[in-house]
Structure formats: C-alpha cells, structure tokens
C-alpha cells in the first residue's frame, strides 16, 4: 500500500481554499446568473475532489467510475422536466 498522506493533505488544503473562495464570491456583489454558475462550478470541483481522492475513485477501474455517472443525466432530465412543468402555466397573469 502506497503512502498517500501527502495527496490527502493537499486535497484537504484545496478543499478549504475552494470553500473560502466560495464564501468570498458569495460576499461580493455580482450578477446573479454569474454567481450561480461560478458557485456550481466550484461545488462540482469540490465534490469531484472528495470522490476522486478521498473516496479513492482515482484508484478504481474506469468502468466503476463511469457506472457511477449513470444516474447523473437521469437526474438532470428529472430536474428539467419538473422545473419546466412547475413553472409552466397555460394562463399568464
């Protein structure tokens, strides 16, 4: 078993830095849409860091990594369908 302490530590540092950046961006005054996009990008990066390093997906087979991605397009479709229908109305005010 290789010693991975260094990688683990660097990962923690990255996560902390990204979190700080998130809170900072949240504090400054920018366009709402830009805010959403930037924060989501940061979040996804952080989630990937956790999954790849801490949950060892980096060291698993490609097949396992890919299988875990299967529900994501589904969830996106659900999100789109639900959000679209809930905000749709035949009548306008």
């Amino acid at each position, binding site marked *: 078993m290789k010693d991975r302490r260094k990688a683990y530590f660097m990962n*923690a540092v990255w996560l902390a830095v990204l979190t700080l950046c998130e809170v900072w961006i949240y504090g400054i005054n920018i366009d709402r849409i830009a805010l959403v996009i930037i924060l989501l990008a940061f979040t996804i990066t952080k989630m990937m860091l956790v999954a790849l390093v801490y949950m060892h997906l980096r060291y698993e087979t490609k097949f396992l990594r890919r299988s875990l991605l299967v529900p994501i397009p589904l969830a996106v479709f659900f999100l789109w369908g639900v959000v679209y229908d809930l905000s749709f109305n035949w009548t306008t005010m």
Partner: protein
Amino acid sequence: MNKAIQLNDRFGAATTGKLGMWLFLVMDALTFGTILIGGIGLRNAADVWPTAGLILNVPLTAFNTFLLICSSFTMVMALNGVQKGDRKSFIKYLALTIGGGVIFLGVQVYEYTHFILGSNELGVVLSQSGFSGTQFLPFTGMYGAVFYTTTSFHALHVLTGVIYLSVILTQAVKGQYGSDNYDRVEVAGLFWHFVDLIWILVFTLIYLL
C-alpha cells in the same frame, strides 16, 4: 462455507462490500437529489424567495463545512494508518473523525435552537424576507420546509455516520483491523466522505444561492 468465487470483472479489485456501499451511495444520492430537485422546482415556481444569507448564518456554516472537510481528511488518515499497520494513528485519527462529526452536529443543533427559540433580530430579518413572527420554523413557508428537510436529512446521515464509525472504533480498539484486514474501515470511510460530499452541495444550494 467456502468463500464465493469471484469473477475477474470490470470492477477490478473493489471488494464486494465496497461495491455494495457504492451502490447504496448512488441510491442515497438519488434520495437527496429528489429532495433537492423538489426544492429547486418549488423555488423556481415561487414568486419570492428569501436571500439565503439574511436568515441563515453563513460564516458559522462555512466553519461547519471546513469541519467536515477536516474530518474527511482525518478519516483517510485513519485508513492510511490501518493500511500501514500503524494502529495508534489509526485509532487516533478515527477518534478525531468522530469528534469532528459530533461538533458538526453540535453546531447544527445550535443553529436550529437559535431559529426555533426565535429572537427579535430574527424577527426583523424574517419580515425582510416576507415572513411574520420571530421564529424560523419548518412551517415558515416553503423556504422553511426546504431548509429544514434538506439539512435535517443530512444531519441524520452525519448521526448515522458517527454511530457507524463508533462501532468501527470499538472494533478497532479490540484489535479487529490490521494491514491485511481494513476493508470495513474503507467502506465506512466511503459513507463518511459521501456525507461530506453531499454537504458541499447542500451548502452551496441552501446557504449560498
């Protein structure tokens, strides 16, 4: 009973227990995902939605996020310890991980009691967000429902994780794990990191956006 024969499949060296945990995590993510999708859908269709930072305490929760990151780090350090056969550091880091989880829960309980007991300052920010009263409760509009359901469901996971890791810890103290037998520690770790991973998403969606 013989050990069942394992095929050389495309999941490589991942143990059966690990695969089971991964599958469970995917399912759990879908449960969370549905709650979050529901929240997003409701928010999108709602006329008004309070700005997150008005009612919620972002700095405190940012600290909590940091705490979970740290406990994820200590968890992998514990795993690293047991893999190296370094029992002392294994137990030390495992205990630290559990401690991190407990503090996280404590902070959250503090946050909840603050909301539930209510205060005049809270009343002011609530009215700025279009709510009446001085308490912020699960019935405080859609917003309260979404906030409490998501965070408490996550807190339930943290609690489960704390109990789960405590079981591992007692077994560790009894000397059950070693450098040739750490699969269960790794599997428990997966669960713990997943709780962290979900929190990262919840933090952004509920507190920051």
